């Protein structure tokens, strides 16, 4: 039983991991065919993962409604939104438009999803300004450098800035292309080494937190 519960999953990871890492170096059509089918499988499995999440959401709000916790009415709104969208979606075969004509599903998408998403993102602009005001202070020499660089790039990225201070465009482009690119590259290489190390640990069963349950 231990084998089925603990070792077999680790063995599956080891085999799939090694197989698909090795696949990269093998140009033979057989190996390419394997990659084609396996990535298609991954696409399908990815779809099923969603059910897992939705079940959790369903459960969580069902509990709220059953216990009539504070704000359970909003959970009803959530249910209504979800079931309503699914109903019109299935009715429209999952298409927002058919031959150029908008379906009811398309209506929900265009007049509910789109404005809600767009507005949430728009709030970001306001928050950026308030965060900048609140915490962008020259508390130290480093912070002062950050501040000056940020201002130059902000000037250089808009036409008004370039109009007022013509040099700002070139300077901000230099900051982005030279200073920024090299620092990002350093972080990128470091993070990539981390990613490769982690992948190795996963494949060889050293890191198993993804199976849940700590050391067991």
């Amino acid at each position, binding site marked *: 039983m231990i084998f089925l519960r603990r070792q077999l999953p680790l063995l599956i990871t080891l085999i799939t991991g090694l197989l698909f890492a090795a696949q990269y170096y093998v140009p033979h059509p057989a190996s390419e065919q394997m990659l084609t089918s396996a990535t298609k499988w991954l696409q399908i499995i990815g779809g099923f993962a969603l059910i*897992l999440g939705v079940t959790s959401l369903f459960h969580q709000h069902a509990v709220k409604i059953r216990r009539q916790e504070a704000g359970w009415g909003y959970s009803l709104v959530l249910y209504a939104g979800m079931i309503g969208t699914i109903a019109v979606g299935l009715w429209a075969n999952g298409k927002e438009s058919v031959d150029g004509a908008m379906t009811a599903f398309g209506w929900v998408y265009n007049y509910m999803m789109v404005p809600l998403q767009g507005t949430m993102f728009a709030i970001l602009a306001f928050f950026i300004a308030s965060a900048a005001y609140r915490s962008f202070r020259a508390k130290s020499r480093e912070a002062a450098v950050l501040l000056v660089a940020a201002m130059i790039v902000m000037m250089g990225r808009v036409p008004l800035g370039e109009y007022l201070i013509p040099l700002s465009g070139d300077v901000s482009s230099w900051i982005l292309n030279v200073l920024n690119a090299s620092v990002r590259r350093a972080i990128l290489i470091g993070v990539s080494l981390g990613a490769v190390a982690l992948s190795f640990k996963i494949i060889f069963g*050293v890191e198993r937190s993804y199976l849940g349950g700590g050391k067991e």
Partner: protein
Amino acid sequence: MRVNRQVSTIRRSTGRTFWTLICSAWLCSSVFAQSSVMPPQDVRVFDTPSDEGGSLTVQWAPSSWDVPDVRYQVLVGDAAATDPASFTIIAEFPGNSKYVKDAKTAWWTRNVDKTWHQVLVRSGKGVEVKDGTPYAVAVTAVQGDQRVFSPVLVATPSPDWFNWNQLNNLVIAVSFGGLVFYTISHAKRNEIFLRRIPGLDAVDEAIGRATELGKPILYLTGAHDLHDPSTIAAAVILGKVAKRAALYETELIVPHREPITMAVCQEITKQAYLEAGKPDLFKEDANFFITADQFSYTAAVDGIMLRKKPAANFFMGAYFAESLLLTETGASTGAIQIAGTDSDHQLPFFVTTCDYTLIGEELYAASAYLSKEPVQIGTLRGQDIGKAVVLSTIAMGVALATFGAITGAQWPQIILDLFRDLK
């Protein structure tokens, strides 16, 4: 599979000789422009090495009349055919193009000098190149009405089982992997010093404050799935935070964007409560899924922050545009905020709005530091050594490249090519 490891001696010739060659080729062509062209010399046809099949490689030596006026044609025909004039033309190009050096192959897989011509024969209009079938190939030089043929050669394409151009990639993968496992086993036997990260003291402080105020702790694991090191690090840190929260009997809220991460984090939290000796306090719904959609998730988490007013907010893992929407809202409720992310594009937002931020790999280091497990610490050591190697490679590489540029020597390039991405 043909692999020729011989490093041609011609390659050691300096760049100047190369230029002399080119110049003389140009001179010759202008002087003897009217003279007749010769058949292409030393033509070789063979199955393309390190490929998925369905392709042949044709190579021939450069000649004195490699000029735009003279055109080369590559012809393919049935293996039994002998008259090249009846073959199908699959490529036609000016005499001064299509060299070995234009193809992106590693020098350790080359069998001729890089000044040779090279053309790949593949399936295309009029010709289908199948594995296992022999094909006859010839090269012609064309000038005006004149057309001279090379001898007809026959070769059979076949697929290969290893791409030798990616040998450097494999060597790096294997040696770095080996290094990581070595450092892990080393860390199991020896104590390794780990520099304390200031943000980590704050973790305890934040949990302590939440307990004092009797308010919950909010923990986010980021936007990515479990393939990502940042998510794994976030999950490991969650285990440690959950254990402390269990000890202090403080409520933990973990909203998720990714179903599989949620499932795994549930297990991790359960384990943490077990380890803390408080399994009865564990709540299955401490970890819950909201939605995979970026901003509805953000709206919902913002809502949780404003209504449940957690005293400590943890933002670990990968984030995108939602980062500031989360941290600004958190700041407005007065919570202690600790972030840890390798999403470098969001760092400025976290740094300005959070009390502590673990930058880049500090996130991985934090999971090592908190868990004190040799596996984690050893990995960190392995990564550090890897970084040192990359750094010295870059430093030496720049020096070599500069030396090569000044002296015109070719050998530095051979060394540098070991670190090039070649396919």
